[in-house]
């Protein structure tokens, strides 16, 4: 077998390896006022991780997309620079007696994520286990949700976390992947039925319900529980991903229309029923009504965006803390985009969006070139879910849409989010590899 060198990937990764220590250095000079450069061990760790991932992919002959890993690496690098700049005691763990700051812990999670990514990208030769056991995956998803419901504990009114002793995990992040796998497998199997059968009510052609029922039932259960857990961002994310996959599978606009109508209806019902939904909307419409209470976070975020302006305050020179307190609560998770826009300005934020756009573009390309319907739908679902997640949280940060607390993939601090995002990249690389290499029957040696 001919070795695929993945030259494009290497050429794109190299400047990122310079970018990260460069950012650390600026931060440190600004913060300390001396010419000390930043934490070299983090920069070296990050470089070793990315290059290692590249070499493993080359060694195992993965011929998958070469722009995805560098795009992810760039986003992760910007995130790491920002997390290193923020106060290190916001989060973090100690491992083997060494106290890891927030950035160190994030790097540790990057390592775990990249290893999972490589195992999937290299190890998943055949998508049979994903495709044929779809109801098992659905059951796993429901169990995860049930576990969160029963054993979970609340942070900020949303019950998302399960305490496993050493670490706390967010099962919702893994549920996201399981759900996309199930929907892709289900739609790939029934796609022809869904598109060919037509039931008409008046001028609307309605989906043939019996074929839809298993999927709709699962989806309704998931949505109900997620809403009960007060995790509105995730609910929105699941719904958007589902609609995207349904549209791609069937090509019928009427499904999207029905979905959007359901969304609007559901939103009004939730607005009536739940106080916290009402509060979110009120704060979104006028955060300045209660600037020291409910509107505190969005108001401070808007100020930070304003301070950043076009070119930013400079790394390490923004107003992240004031008198020992964070100016924006949860700046390391939900509001990392605001922090980046404050210190790197609109230009820096645009660069970050550019990397995200490259990722989404390549993800959809993987889907378009996929060998079979299941792989294609899976790639669409994974890409759409990461894209929507970024869209929802960046929109929330900039007061474009009501704020819902989810992470910015690859950038925000958070183990579960990083791990889940890298698993998704692993799946994309595996799909991409199989679409290029061709059949499973092809002799390997």
């Amino acid at each position, binding site marked *: 077998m001919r070795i695929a060198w993945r030259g*494009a990937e290497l*050429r*794109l990764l190299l*400047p*990122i390896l*310079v*970018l990260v220590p*460069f*950012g650390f*250095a*600026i931060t440190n*000079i*600004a913060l300390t*006022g001396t010419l000390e450069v930043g934490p070299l061990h983090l920069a070296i760790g990050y470089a070793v991780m990315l290059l290692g991932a590249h070499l493993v992919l080359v060694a195992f002959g993965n011929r998958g997309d*070469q*722009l995805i890993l*560098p*795009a992810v690496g*760039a986003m992760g690098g910007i995130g790491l620079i920002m997390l290193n700049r923020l106060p290190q005691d916001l989060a973090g763990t100690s491992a083997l007696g060494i106290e890891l700051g927030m950035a160190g812990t994030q790097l540790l999670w990057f390592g775990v994520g990249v290893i999972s990514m490589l195992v999937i990208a290299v190890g998943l030769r055949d998508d049979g286990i994903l495709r044929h056991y779809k109801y098992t995956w659905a059951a796993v998803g429901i169990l995860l949700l049930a576990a969160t419901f029963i054993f979970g504990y609340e942070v900020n009114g949303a019950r998302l976390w399960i305490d496993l002793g050493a670490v706390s995990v967010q099962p919702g992040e893994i549920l996201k992947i399981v759900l996309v796998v199930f929907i892709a497998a289900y739609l*790939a*199997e029934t*796609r*022809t*039925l869904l*598109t*060919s059968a037509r039931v008409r009510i008046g001028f609307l052609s309605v989906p043939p319900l019996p074929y839809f029922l298993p999927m709709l039932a699962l989806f309704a259960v998931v949505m109900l529980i997620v809403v009960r857990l007060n995790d509105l961002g995730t609910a929105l994310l699941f719904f958007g991903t589902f609609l995207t996959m349904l549209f791609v599978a069937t090509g019928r606009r009427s499904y999207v229309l029905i979905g959007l109508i359901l969304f609007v209806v559901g939103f009004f019902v939730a607005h009536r029923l739940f106080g916290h939904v009402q509060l979110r909307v009120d704060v979104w419409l006028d955060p300045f009504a209660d600037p020291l209470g409910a509107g505190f976070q969005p108001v401070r975020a808007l100020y930070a965006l304003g301070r950043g302006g076009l*070119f*930013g305050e*400079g*790394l390490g*020179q923004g107003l992240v803390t004031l008198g020992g307190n964070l100016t924006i609560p949860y700046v390391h998770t939900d509001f990392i985009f605001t922090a980046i826009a404050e210190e*790197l*300005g609109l*230009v*820096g934020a645009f*660069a970050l969006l*550019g*990397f995200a756009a*490259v990722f989404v*573009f390549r993800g959809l390309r993987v889907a378009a070139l*996929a*060998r*079979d*319907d*299941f*792989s*294609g739908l899976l790639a669409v679902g994974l890409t759409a879910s990461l894209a929507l997640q970024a869209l929802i949280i960046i929109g929330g940060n900039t007061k474009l849409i009501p704020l819902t607390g989810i992470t910015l993939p690859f950038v925000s601090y958070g183990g579960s989010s990083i791990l889940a995002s890298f698993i998704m990249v692993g799946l994309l690389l595996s799909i991409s590899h199989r679409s290029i290499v*061709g*059949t*499973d*029957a*092809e*002799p390997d040696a």
Partner: protein
Amino acid sequence: MTGDILRILLLVLQLGFVALLYLVLMRFAGSLLKDLRNAEEVQIASRSGIGRLSVLESPADEPPAGTTIALGPINSIGRNVNNTIYVEDDFVSTNHAMLTFRGRSWFVEDQGSTNGTYVNGHRIDRPVALSFGDELTIGRVRMRLDR
């Protein structure tokens, strides 16, 4: 005085950082464009048809396992050499099945074969729509419909 120098230094470094950020982004754009230009050629070279059959398993080695067969809109499959897709296998009938592309989908129909036609392991008794990735078993020959 040192404060001023530091401030100027930081400004220069910051501009350098943003410049590097955009340099990386430009490189990405370059790679994207290069790929888009190549993509057209690849498309023409390998995937001009409406679909192809990948032969996964073929004990009698006709068609040989591991090969792919480009498909036209109408394909007859059977042991008679006049079929579009000629399959040499003792368990395949003379005129075994028809594989046709109608509208936007592939369909397969059994032509009254002795041993039947299987889609993803299930025997079919009427024309069945196929998705890309579905497995078609005719006699002992296992094939997959690919894009």
